[in-house]
């Protein structure tokens, strides 16, 4: 049975598309799936570095599309994880070096051998984005709980729907439970109410993600981290499992004092 292609997109830059692609791809491979990641951000290659595969690039997406090499030779096999491959972006070319039709054909070819083909989309709504979505069966939209990110996500959802990707799913990245509790950050319900698409998952703001990128080891390898566990849950949901959202709320001092002073109507012992 042929595999499935997913595009990870957002509109706004810097919200976590590449990190999400790396972690979802790695997570699915850890579940035993055969996964190929494609960095579609031509000219601004990044997925390789997040995956820790930057010193193994020989050929790239443009080389494949222009026929300079066989697809097999351009795919980089991840050494840590079985069945995980990367097709890197070109670093020195313009985004129009590849066409949407070429991307479609590439994804179709890869789907014959892989369970999942995941395309990391560049930011924006122009050529790079159109290339990235051309070969996709489904779309994942990444946003953060900030006004500009949500606005751009809304625009991107409109464009996905106009291109027959009608049921995109949402990942809310970098949520900060402390700010949500203070009323200084929109929460999951607020964002879903505005964007009105299905929620795939929520990833908390986590310093471990930066550490992971420093090392070139996607955080999903370490499920003791909050973001790692969140990404792994997302991966399980992609595979069809019904996983409840992580309990991101941690009781702060104020909540404990409120309970102690009986403001929730129940008598409890002090912690």
């Amino acid at each position, binding site marked *: 049975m042929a595999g499935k292609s997913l595009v990870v997109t957002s509109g706004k830059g810097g919200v976590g598309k590449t990190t999400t692609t790396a972690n979802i791809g790695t997570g699915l491979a850890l579940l035993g799936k055969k996964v190929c990641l494609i960095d579609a951000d031509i000219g601004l290659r990044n997925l390789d570095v997040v995956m820790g595969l930057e010193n193994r690039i020989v050929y790239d997406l443009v080389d494949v599309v222009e026929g300079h090499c066989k697809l097999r030779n351009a795919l980089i096999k991840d050494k840590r994880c079985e069945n995980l491959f990367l097709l890197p972006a070109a670093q020195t070319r313009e985004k129009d070096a590849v066409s949407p039709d070429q991307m479609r054909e590439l994804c179709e070819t890869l789907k014959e051998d892989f369970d999942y083909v995941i395309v990391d989309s560049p930011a924006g709504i122009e050529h790079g984005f159109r290339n990235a979505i051309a070969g996709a069966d489904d779309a994942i939209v990444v946003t953060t709980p*900030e*006004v500009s990110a*949500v*606005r751009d996500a*809304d*625009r991107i959802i*409109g464009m996905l729907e106009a291109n027959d990707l009608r049921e995109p799913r949402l990942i809310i990245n970098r949520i900060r439970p402390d700010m*949500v509790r*203070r*009323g*200084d*950050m*929109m*929460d999951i319900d*607020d964002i879903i109410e*505005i964007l009105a698409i299905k929620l795939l998952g929520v990833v908390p703001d986590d310093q471990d993600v930066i550490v992971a990128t420093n090392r070139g080891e996607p955080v999903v390898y370490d499920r003791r981290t909050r973001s790692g566990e969140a990404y792994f849950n997302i991966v399980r949901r992609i595979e069809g499992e019904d996983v409840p959202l992580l309990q991101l709320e941690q009781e702060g001092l*104020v909540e404990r*004092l*409120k309970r102690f002073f009986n403001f929730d109507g129940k008598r409890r012992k002090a912690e």
Partner: protein
Amino acid sequence: MFDFFGKLFGRDEGSKKAAKDRLKLVLVHDRASLSPRLMENLKEDLIRVISKYLEIDEEGLEVSFDQEEETMALIANIPIRQVRRNVEVKANS
């Protein structure tokens, strides 16, 4: 000290409400302006419904968004030529 107790009893209103309200408004504009067909469809539907009761000047119909601080309204200016005779008014049940 008082600020602490204010926060303890939840009287401090955070900025997320502002974020949500602004987003909702800006998205009405974004979605309408990105879809010119939306406004055309809206006008056509308005004409169709109002024409059941009133004869209107279709050319003179104007529809726009009006924003005042925190609220937004859809403003329609509908020039009327004549009230129609023999309109069947549905009884409200």
